[in-house]
C-alpha cells in the first residue's frame, strides 16, 4: 500500500520545490536565495530516497548521500562574498 503512494509523495515534494522557487525569485536578500538552494538540496535528497524505493534502484541512495555530503560547498563559497558591494578591491597587476 505504502509503495503505491510513493510517486504521489514525490509529486507533492516537487510542488514544494516549485513554491520554494518563488522565494528565490522574490528574494529580497542574497541570503534568502541561498536558502532556496538549501531547500532544493534537502528536498532533492528526500525525493531521491523516495525514488530509489519507487524505481527499485538502490544506487540512487548513494546519489542522495553525495548530495548531502557536498551540499555545504555553495554556502561556503557564498560566505566569502563581500558583505558590502562598495568595499575596495585589490588592484590589477598587469
Amino acid at each position, binding site marked *: 500500500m505504502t509503495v503505491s503512494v510513493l510517486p504521489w509523495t514525490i509529486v507533492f515534494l516537487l510542488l514544494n520545490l516549485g513554491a520554494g522557487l518563488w522565494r528565490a525569485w522574490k528574494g529580497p536578500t542574497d541570503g534568502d536565495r541561498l536558502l532556496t538552494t538549501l531547500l532544493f538540496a534537502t528536498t532533492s535528497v528526500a525525493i531521491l530516497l523516495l525514488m530509489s524505493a519507487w524505481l527499485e534502484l538502490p544506487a540512487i541512495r548513494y546519489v542522495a548521500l553525495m548530495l548531502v555530503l*557536498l551540499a*555545504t*560547498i555553495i554556502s561556503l563559497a557564498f560566505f566569502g562574498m563581500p558583505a558590502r558591494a562598495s568595499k575596495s578591491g585589490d588592484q590589477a597587476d598587469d
Partner: protein
Amino acid sequence: MSAPLAVDVLLGLILVGLAAQVAIGEHLFRAIVFYVAFGLSMSVIWARLGAPDLALADAAIGAGLTGALMMVAFRRLVEIDPKQAQAQGTRSSALAVLIGVLAAGMVATIGLTALTLEQQPGRAGLQVMETLGDTGLGNPITGVLLVFRGFDTLIEMTVLLTAFVGSRVMTTRSRFYVATIAGFQLPLVRTLVAVILPLAALIAMHLLWIGSDQPGGAFQAGSVLAGAGVLLLLTGTLLPASKSRALVRLALVAGVASLCVLVLAPMLRGQVAMAYLGRGSLLFAEALMMVSIATSLTLLFAGRPSLKVGRP
C-alpha cells in the same frame, strides 16, 4: 493523470523554470544561484531516468563544483571592481527571441522524430550488453569507458590536462589568489571538515571498487574527491600554492599515463592495441584516473599549480 507522468511533467517544468531564470533573469548573482538549483534538479532527473551513474557525477559536479566555480569567479570580479562586476549591457531583441524559438523547435523536431524511428538490431548499445559478459564486468558504462571506447577516455583525460595547463598559463602572472576562506576558525566549519573529509574518501573508494559491477567508477569517485578538495580549499584547510611539486604533477598525468599503458601494453604482448587485459588492470587504471580527475579539478578551482596545507 498517472503518477509517473505527473513526476516527469513537474520535474520538467521546474527545470525549464530554473533555466529561464538562469538565461534571461536580470541579475548575475541570481542566475548563479538558480544554476546551482538547476544542477541539483538535473541530478534528480538522471535518477528518474534510471541513470544513477550520471546522477552521481552530476550530484558532485553540476550541483557542487560548477556552482562554486561560478560563485567564486563572480566574487573575484566583485573584489576587483564592484561596480563593473554586475554590469550587464543586455540587448534584448526580437531577433534573438526568434532564433531561440527556432533553435528550440529544431531540437524538438530532431528529438521527436528520432523517437519514432525503429530500433536498429545491431546498434552499439545492444552489442555492448551482449559482449559485456566476456569482459567479466557488470557495469556496462565502465565497460564502454575503459574497454569498448578506451581511446575516447584517453582523449578525455588529455582534454582535462590541457584545460589545467591552459588555466595555469592564464593565472600565472596575476596576484596570489587569496582563497575564499570561509572562516576555518569557526568551530562548526572545523567539525564539518573533520566529518566530511574521511567520509568523502571512503565513498570515493567504495564507488571505485564497486564501479566494475554497479553504478560507480573512476569519474564518479574522482568527482567526489574533487568536491571534497574544493570544500577543503573553501575552508582554508588547503591553500593554493605557486611552487609546483613533483607529486602533484605526477598525480595530474597519472590518468593519461595509465590509459596509455592500457593502450600499449597489449602491443608488447603481440596483441592489438587496447586489447582487454582483465579486471585488475582496469581497476588499477581507474584508480589512477580518479586521482588525476580529482587533482586537476581541484587545481582548476584553486587556479594555481599546486596546493599546500593551511594553518588553522
